[in-house]
Structure formats: structure tokens, C-alpha cells
């Protein structure tokens, strides 16, 4: 292996495919998008340089952008916290049960592998007053009419409106299995000796979870939080399929706003500026999480 790593030609040969692939499908499009974000560009005529106009309009005049930014940040905070807690609880629970571990693991992970578009439509029907939960509760006599119950995807009261909470919970249901799997993988790598030593010292299961498990899975917490933050910032499919950003843009997030500006109005330059803001936010969040979630590596 050492000999192979000293062979510069071999290194170049092995790195080249990945490097070329990433350059072509990632770096060049990113650079192109950054360039277009400074242009008035409709994809049909050549881009026209407009400097910072797109960014000025985006950050000072675009009311939908403010809503989208608020919703995206809410979504990110909610996802990071809820998936951290729920993922840890489920991982802790599943690593401590003897029977049915694989069954429950598969049940919790199943929504992750299903199509978000299909799930979005399914949940949309569930929360449609005349078809889903409200209709069911009406048939049980809870409401006299399905529209008397909460209008899950239509209510616009409050700073964070009800449809955003509903979508956030659906996303939690869909993706918590992914966090759970990451934490389980890390927990299963912790040596049993450490737990046995803690039990000899008088720790119960709760204390050993707090003083042994939690510190040792911290690197995975940072990784899972980064993935959650990035995933929720660029979140699109559930929103698009459940509300299409409505009522009247109230549930718009950055990705749906980008899609609308680019594909509905042919404003690819402006949409690229939204994409750049999204990219910066993703990088910023990754940096902050890695900076503030302490990652000491312990021998496990």
C-alpha cells in the first residue's frame, strides 16, 4: 500500500475520474450559477451582466424571499433539533432491545426509501379536510363538518403557520430513520467494556447513556446535524407536493422560490442568485455546526 501511495502516477490515475466527475457535474455548474447570478438571464437569450442587482432585489425587495428564508430557517432548526432528539431516542431504544430490533429498524427506516413525491401526495390527502383526518373525525362525531376541524394545510394564522408545522412533522417522520441509523452505527461501535465498567461503578442505563454514549457519539451528532441542516435548507419535494408553496406563497421555502423564479418566469439569473444564497447558507451551517459541536475522538 505504501509503495502504491508513493507512485504519483497511480495517485493521479485513481483521483482523476472522481476529480473530473466532480469538476464537470459540480464545480463548473456552481461557478456558472455564480456567474449567472450577476446576470439578467432567461436561458433563451445571452446573459446580460447586471452586477449586484439580483442580490439587492432578492435581499431587500422580494417579500416571498423573506417568507422563504424564514420558513427554511424554521425548517432547519426544527429538523436539527427534532431529528437529533428522536433519532437518539430511537437509536438508544433499539440498541437496548433484544427482540425485534431489525423489524423496528426497518419500520423506522422505511419512509426514507420511499418516494417523497408519492409521500407528499399521500400526506396531502390525509390533511385535506374532506378526505383525511378531519373527515374521519367527523364520521366519529368529533366535528359536525370536516371544515370545522383544523385546516391543516390552509390555516395562515401565526408567525410560523400551521401548514409549516404539519410539513415539518411529516419530514421528521420521513427522515428520522436516517438519523437513527447513523446514531445506531456509532453506538454499536462503543466497546461493551466501557458500559460494564460503568455498571460496576454503579451507573444505571440512563447514566451510562448520558456519560458514555452521548460523549462518544458526538462526532456523529455533528455529521447528522450537518446532513439535517443542509437537507432541510434545500428541502423541496414535500412542500411542493403538499402545498405548492401556498396559500399564496405562505409555505414557500428557498428551493421552491428558486424553482418558481427559474421555471415559471424564466428568470434564471435571479434563480441562480437564490441558489447562491442557499449554497452560502449550507456552507455557513456546516461551518457553525463543526465549530460549535465539539468533536473529541475517544478510543472506543
Amino acid at each position, binding site marked *: 500500500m505504501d509503495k502504491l501511495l508513493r507512485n504519483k502516477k*497511480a495517485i493521479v490515475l485513481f483521483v482523476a*475520474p472522481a476529480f473530473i466527475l466532480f469538476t464537470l457535474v459540480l464545480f463548473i455548474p456552481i461557478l456558472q450559477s455564480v456567474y449567472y447570478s450577476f446576470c439578467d438571464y432567461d436561458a433563451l*437569450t445571452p446573459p446580460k451582466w447586471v452586477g449586484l442587482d439580483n442580490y439587492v432585489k432578492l435581499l431587500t425587495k422580494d417579500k416571498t424571499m423573506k417568507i422563504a428564508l424564514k420558513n427554511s430557517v424554521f425548517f432547519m432548526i426544527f429538523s436539527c433539533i427534532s431529528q437529533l432528539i428522536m433519532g437518539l431516542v430511537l437509536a438508544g431504544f433499539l440498541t437496548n432491545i433484544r427482540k425485534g430490533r431489525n423489524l423496528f429498524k426497518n419500520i423506522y427506516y422505511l419512509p426514507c426509501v420511499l418516494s417523497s413525491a408519492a409521500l407528499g401526495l399521500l400526506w396531502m390527502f390525509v390533511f385535506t379536510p374532506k378526505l383525511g383526518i378531519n373527515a374521519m373525525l367527523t364520521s366519529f362525531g368529533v366535528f359536525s363538518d370536516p371544515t370545522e376541524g383544523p*385546516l391543516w394545510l*390552509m390555516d*395562515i394564522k401565526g408567525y410560523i403557520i400551521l401548514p409549516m408545522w404539519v410539513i415539518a412533522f411529516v419530514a421528521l417522520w420521513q427522515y428520522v430513520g436516517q438519523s437513527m441509523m447513523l446514531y445506531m452505527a456509532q453506538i454499536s461501535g462503543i466497546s461493551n467494556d466501557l458500559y460494564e465498567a460503568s455498571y460496576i461503578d454503579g451507573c444505571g442505563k440512563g447514566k451510562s447513556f448520558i456519560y458514555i454514549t452521548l460523549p462518544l457519539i458526538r462526532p456523529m451528532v455533528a455529521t447528522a446535524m450537518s446532513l439535517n441542516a443542509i437537507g432541510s435548507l434545500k428541502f423541496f419535494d414535500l412542500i411542493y407536493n403538499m402545498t405548492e408553496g401556498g*396559500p*399564496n406563497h405562505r409555505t414557500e421555502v428557498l428551493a421552491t422560490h428558486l424553482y418558481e423564479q427559474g*421555471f415559471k418566469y424564466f428568470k434564471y439569473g435571479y434563480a441562480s442568485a437564490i441558489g447562491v444564497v442557499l449554497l452560502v447558507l449550507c456552507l455557513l451551517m456546516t461551518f457553525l455546526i463543526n465549530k460549535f459541536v465539539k468533536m473529541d475522538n475517544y478510543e472506543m
Partner: protein
Amino acid sequence: MKNFKRVLASILSAGMMLGLLAGCAAAPAASTPAPAAEAPAAEEAAPAEDGVQEITWMFWDDLEATSDLISLGYKDVVDRFNKDYEGKYHVTPITTNLEEYYSKLNALVAANQTPDVFIVSPGPNLDVYVNPGVAAVLDDYLADGWKDTFTSDAVFSGGTYDGKIYAIPLNIAAACVFYNTEMFEKAGAEVPTNWTEMLDACEKLQAAGYTPITISAGTAWCLSMVAGYLCDRNGLDLDKIASHETDWFDDKVVNAANQIVELSKYFQKTAAGDDNDIATAAFYNEEAAILIQGSWAIGQINGANPEFEDKCGVFQFPAIEGGNDPNRLIAKSDSLAMSSATKYPEASIAFMKYFTDDIAQRYTAEKGGKIPVTKVEYDAAVAPKELAYVMDIFENASGTFGFYNESLADTEAGSTFDNAFVEIFLGTPIEEALQEIQDYYEANVW
């Protein structure tokens, strides 16, 4: 052995790189279509190996799943064309739902994969394809006598730019008020002719326990259509808005906004999120008494619930006392455009002609309930009853105007108008909502 592994690794790496490069090479180079005036005539490409010229048509409804009678008529057109031209031409429909239609069409246009033929609404939506030369000029194809089959040259006005025709109309629809005659009778409500009577009818319907109006604010153009009618009935002149002789805080717009607020008391509770299909279904499922909609809804209503035809009445949008001419109608046509980059213009034109032949146009009236655009004679006795009411309204109309969201400066101005009125319905103060469209015009139009 080591050498073998090294050689194997080298071959695999080279294979990956070649695969990658081959994949990239397969992508067509993006090109910008020539401007409309300079667009060269598309050259007929060689047909596929089996000799069939394959074209695509993009449409805004699922032809396999729909119960809309107009869409089913279009499906018949596709089937007839493919059968008649078997072995020569073949069309494949690309379908999507109406809400996503322009986004997906625009994505295909941007990717240089414009469908050979696509449906489009005249106005700013068509401007988007005409100005950069995406849509082809059709005058030469119409000159072979095809144009003479249409009722008049006026039907082409929405698709004409600088004297050149870019879109072929397929039918005409008018925005009217559909009502449930049985509910009106039971509630003791009269067909209203003015705004006061309209509110009075709604009040009586509500008192009788009915939901007076079903409307979609989730699909913004539905509410905006009512707003457009109210602006026009109050006397707003869009040309004066365009030339900045007046602005969006004009009293007539503010009156229209107040009237939307007044009327919204009678909407179904879920109007904020209901889409057009759900709102229309509430009408033909007899959950609400009034639907303000284009006459294209006749095909949707009768397709989904044929028994409802006998209960369905139609009246024209009521007058505003002291306002503008109450006999003006919002009219709209579905139109077809052809891609200027199509490889098979002859096949595309042959396909487009199937939409305006006698069979299709007769179906349009007799089944679909829309007004034909050609001189075809149809049997009014077998046509939906609603069409007769719409024709009466049309004959008494003093003039027509377009949807407001398709009559403003551009598509985004139209959407801003839609959104402003949905905001007003959702409870945003009128001044604040109208400021949005005022700001848009100040920044982009005036």
C-alpha cells in the same frame, strides 16, 4: 500478479473516464434560438429508420386519467391522427397538470427540447415563446385554405404579432356564473343582475344552509378572474394603467378589492387552499350553489357528473351599479403553437389541423360545451344546455376582454395581480396588497 492488478486498475479507471466523457458527449450543445424575425424556416429532417416522423405535443391535462370532456376530445384527436397517419407520422402527448404546465414547458424550452406542438394561452404566456423565436410563424401553412375554415380573422388576434400568426385557436370560452337552479329555488334566490342582487342571493342561500359560492384561491387565477371582472365592471381601463395615466390605487381597483372582501363572506371555508378542481367539484357535487368560472368548466362538470346538467344554470357576471358596461365578457381561447425548431413541420401542421377539422370542432360544441372557432355546423339540440346559455350571453355581449393576469405587462405582472387579490381575500389590508403590484409596475413597467 501485482502487474496484473495494476493493469486491471488502469483499465477500470480508463473505462470510467471514457464512460464519463461519452456521457458528456451525448448531451446536445445548448443553443439559443434565432429571434422571431430572423427565424429560418425549419428544414424537414429525415424520418426515423422505420419511416415514421415522430412528433410530441405538450398539453395541460392527463389524457388517460381525465374526465374533462374537452381533454377527452383532444385524446380522440391524437388517436385519430395516429391511426390515419399510421406508418407516416406519430404524435406522443407529453401531459402534466395545469398548475405545473408552464414551468415544465419552460424547462423543456430552456433545455432546447421544445415539444413540436404545444398548447398555450394567448397573451404574456405566448409572448414568452414568440419574442425569442421559440414559436414558429404559421401564416404560410394557413394560406392553403386552412385559414378560410375559421369563423373570422378576429379569432387569430390573440396569437398575432406584427401581422404574423403564431398560434392557432381551438375554441372559445367565456367566463360566466354557473349556478345550481334547485338550490336557488329552494332558497328563494333570484338570478342577480347587479351587485346588490348578487349579495342578496348569497345571503338567502347562506340563510337556507347552503354554501353560496365555491371558489379556488389556492389556484390564484380563479379568484383573480373575479377580481378582473370587478375591476372591469367598476370601469378600470387597463390601457391607462399600462400608460401610467392611472395606477393600481385607482378608486376602481380599490372598489373591486372591497367587493372581493364583501363577496368572500360567502366562499366555502376551505377556499384559501382548495385548488380549481376541488372548488369545481364542490359545485357539481352540489356542495355549493355558485361557481364563477370559464365555460370550459362545462366539459369538466358534465364529464364528472352528467346528471347535474339539468340543474345547472348560467348567468353573466352582474353589473356594478353606476359602473361600466355590464355586457362585457371575459373570453379566452386554447391555442396551439408550433416549435420553430421542430424537425417535422409538415407532421406538426397536419396534427394541428386535426384539432380544427369538422369532427373535432363539432365535438367541441356538442360534447365539450365550448364555442367552435371554425364555420362547422353543429347540432345545438345535442349540445350541453349550458352552452346555449353561454351562447345567449355571448350574443348579447357588447365586447370581450382577456383574463387580467393574461392582459398585463408580462406573466409576472399577471401573477402579482393574482397574488395581490388572494392576499386581500386572506385578510391583508387592501393598501398593503395593492402596493405589491404598484411596486412591480414602478420597478418593471412604468
